């Protein structure tokens, strides 16, 4: 997947940029909607390409394959429910960078309003790699592993 504009003149210098796929959670709250806007801006700035988390949730093979082949999958979740991250993990997609918007000092609801600064804060955090893990998650079994999906880390015993 091409991440940015390329030039046929061959005059660009330096290593090619990594390919990244960005999944915003696209939740209904202000923080969820902010993930969409941040993902769009990141795409426009050449950081990666926005993709549809709902399409991932239904297990679309081509999208799962693209995500598996990307250099980095970036997940933007609006709140600690981390729905988008759970969707990626359920599909066996390794998450390279994961940002939770409420952890960036942005309050979830009840207002739907947000500012340009909020978007800028998320975009800047991505560029800084603030959500990057030192050891990216390895692909797990679909609907398997220790994550039961409840989010409490119980391994399915709760």
């Amino acid at each position, binding site marked *: 997947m091409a991440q940015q504009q390329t030039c046929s003149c061959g*005059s660009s210098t330096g290593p090619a940029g990594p390919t990244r796929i960005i999944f915003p959670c696209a939740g209904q709250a202000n923080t969820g909607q902010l993930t969409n806007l941040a993902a769009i801006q990141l795409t426009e700035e050449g950081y990666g390409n926005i993709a549809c988390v709902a399409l991932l949730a239904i297990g679309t093979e081509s999208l799962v394959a693209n995500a598996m082949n990307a250099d980095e999958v970036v997940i933007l979740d609006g709140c600690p429910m981390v729905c988008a991250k759970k969707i990626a993990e359920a599909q066996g997609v390794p998450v390279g960078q994961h940002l939770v918007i409420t952890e960036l000092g942005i309050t979830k609801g009840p207002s739907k309003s947000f500012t340009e600064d909020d978007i800028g804060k998320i975009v800047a955090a*991505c560029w800084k790699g603030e959500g990057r893990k030192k050891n990216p998650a390895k692909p797990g079994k679909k609907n398997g592993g220790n994550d039961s999906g409840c989010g409490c880390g119980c391994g399915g015993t709760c």
Partner: protein
Amino acid sequence: MVTIEVLGTGCANCKRQLSNVEAAVKQLGITAEIVKVDDMAEIMGRGVMMLPAIIIDGDLKISGRVADVPEIKKFLAGGA
């Protein structure tokens, strides 16, 4: 002291490149002179055809795309 030149005409990507460079320098805690080069004649004179670009101590490190902060830190550490 390292000299980092950020070449760009002022578009959103060039501004992002500059802010990423500033963030990388801050994270590394190094002393650096960051020079913003936005004069097109000067940019062309450097032989840079694609923007934004980063030149570190006279060495063109990257052009044609925005580098993220970890990548710039690698450049500054001499990794690329």
